[in-house]
């Protein structure tokens, strides 16, 4: 009897020994991890542990000092031509970022645009999608995050939770392969957190590959396929939520989980 061997999945994100310093302080001391397509990874850890910095390195908002990050087989920030590696120019970096969406802690919606304009600005202006098509898709996306009736509202007229859901729709509008969430619920009133997490759970269920920096242990337990605990710029512990969250092996993980739960 021959066993059908499943080929090992090619990771969508692979980071190897990523290092980053800010003014002599090393924030990332060699992060190695990978995320498979369709997987949801939650990054946990105390503030200052380098989670957000690592996330920002993935879409080249920060330039890494060492190691390498590749998304879907492409090196981030560098182009390989004839066995040589060249640093990308801003235009090439911008093109690469289209495949990686990001949702910020403080929403960062464009305040001078309506919700719909926020969602359609990049598809129309960057991807050169026909306007009617972009508007239709924008409304579909707003509907998906439950805000179709607020399409013409400006960010200042929306609650924090609504703004964050518009921000999620905006990042989805470029059809990213990978979505990064940088503490998406930390700036929200407690009663608004649920709406945003519901949208994120729905995305995870639809098979979106997501990396989520969060302090919501409940979300990590329910939606994550893997959990990575970082502290002091290194990965301390990683694995499925059942092992990292419910049966942590490392003392620092235990102490952190005790303090947040």
């Amino acid at each position, binding site marked *: 009897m021959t066993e059908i061997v499943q080929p090992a999945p090619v990771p969508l994100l692979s980071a190897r020994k990523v290092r980053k310093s800010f003014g002599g302080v090393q924030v990332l001391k060699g992060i190695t991890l990978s995320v498979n397509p369709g997987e949801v990874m939650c990054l946990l850890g105390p503030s200052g542990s380098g989670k957000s910095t690592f996330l920002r390195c993935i879409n080249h908002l920060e330039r890494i000092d060492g190691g390498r990050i590749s998304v879907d087989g492409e090196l981030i920030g560098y182009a390989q031509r004839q066995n040589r590696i060249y640093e990308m120019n801003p235009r090439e970096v911008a093109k690469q*970022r289209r495949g990686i969406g990001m949702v*910020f802690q403080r929403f960062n919606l*464009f305040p*001078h645009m309506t919700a719909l304009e926020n969602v359609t*600005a990049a598809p129309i202006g*960057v991807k050169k999608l026909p306007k009617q098509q972009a508007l239709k898709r924008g409304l579909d996306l707003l509907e998906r995050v439950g805000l179709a009736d607020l399409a013409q509202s*400006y960010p200042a007229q929306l609650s924090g939770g609504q703004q964050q859901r518009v921000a999620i729709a905006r*990042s989805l509008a470029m059809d990213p392969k990978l979505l990064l969430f940088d503490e998406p619920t930390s700036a929200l009133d407690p009663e608004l957190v649920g709406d945003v997490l519901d949208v994120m759970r729905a995305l995870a269920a639809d098979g979106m590959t997501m990396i989520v920096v969060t302090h919501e242990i409940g979300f990590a337990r329910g939606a994550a396929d893997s959990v990575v605990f970082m502290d002091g710029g290194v990965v301390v512990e990683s694995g499925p939520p059942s092992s990292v969250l419910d049966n942590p092996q490392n003392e620092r993980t235990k102490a952190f989980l005790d303090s947040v739960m």
Partner: protein
Amino acid sequence: MSSVAISERPPEVSTDAVDPDDIVAVPLRHPWRWVVAALLLAAFVTLAVSLWDNENIHHPTITEFLFNPRILSGVVLTLVITVIAMVISTVLGVLIAVMRLSSNPVMNVMAWVYVWVFRGTPLLIQIVFWGYLGLLYAQISLGVPFTDFTLFSIDTNTLIPAFTAGLLALTLNQAAYSAEIVRAGMLSVDQGQYEAAYSVGMSPTFTLFKVVLPQAMRVIIPPMGNETISMLKNTSLLSVIAVLELYTVATQISSQNLRQVELLVVVSCWYLFLTSMLSIPQYYLERHFGRGNARSLPPTPIQRMSALLRHTRPVGVVEDPTNPAQVVTKGAHS
């Protein structure tokens, strides 16, 4: 029992009835305000009368020259110079501001030097300088530097007549000030806006024009309104190089009829009128770029007036049922 007694008498909502707990007091008087106001009014009336009855001012001359064709052509030229100089200087200003914020050190220093030179020397001197450029370069030619090859050569005074010299001086000087205003506006935009724009794949140039500058405009427009008013008045300095704008025309007329004061009054009336007119586009520009900043835009003066005529509340104010002030006024009217 007691709870029944309370429910029998509904709580008073009327504001007319005097509650015994409310204090009825004599309001505070301000006698000195009246004294100061009376003194100021008296001074103003004295001044106005002294001007009106002044034998040295020949009032018919003022009315005669207010709409004189030469004066009107001066007004037109003043407006034309103001508009062209402001438009070009704003474009230049954005360019210099972007240069100053760029990471290229040469661009950075060049922009700094530009602002340093044009802001650091008097505008009057710059105007005279451009007016007498022919003394510095008699011919202006285009060719390959340090060789004898020239594409064309032209007399400086032909290439740059007084009008062009004046326009150049005002534009280049204004660009230095505008650059600093634009730079301040760009610095006022949150860093998170750049990150959000980059994260959806926008290039730095696209981000500048679609995300950063539209938001910077809210900060840029009020001081630029100021600069436009300054520019309008500074065009009068072009009289030193004989550009036929409003003030030059007025001095030419008064040197013939010797009615200096009257023509200064005519000119002042025009400058006041034009600066007042300029505040209208500024209001609407501020409104346009302020969108999304307030929860609801205030009504425009036209909307306010039409609302007043119709005796309804102004358009644009969203009725907020949670706002007690609005609920009370509504109740009082019904």
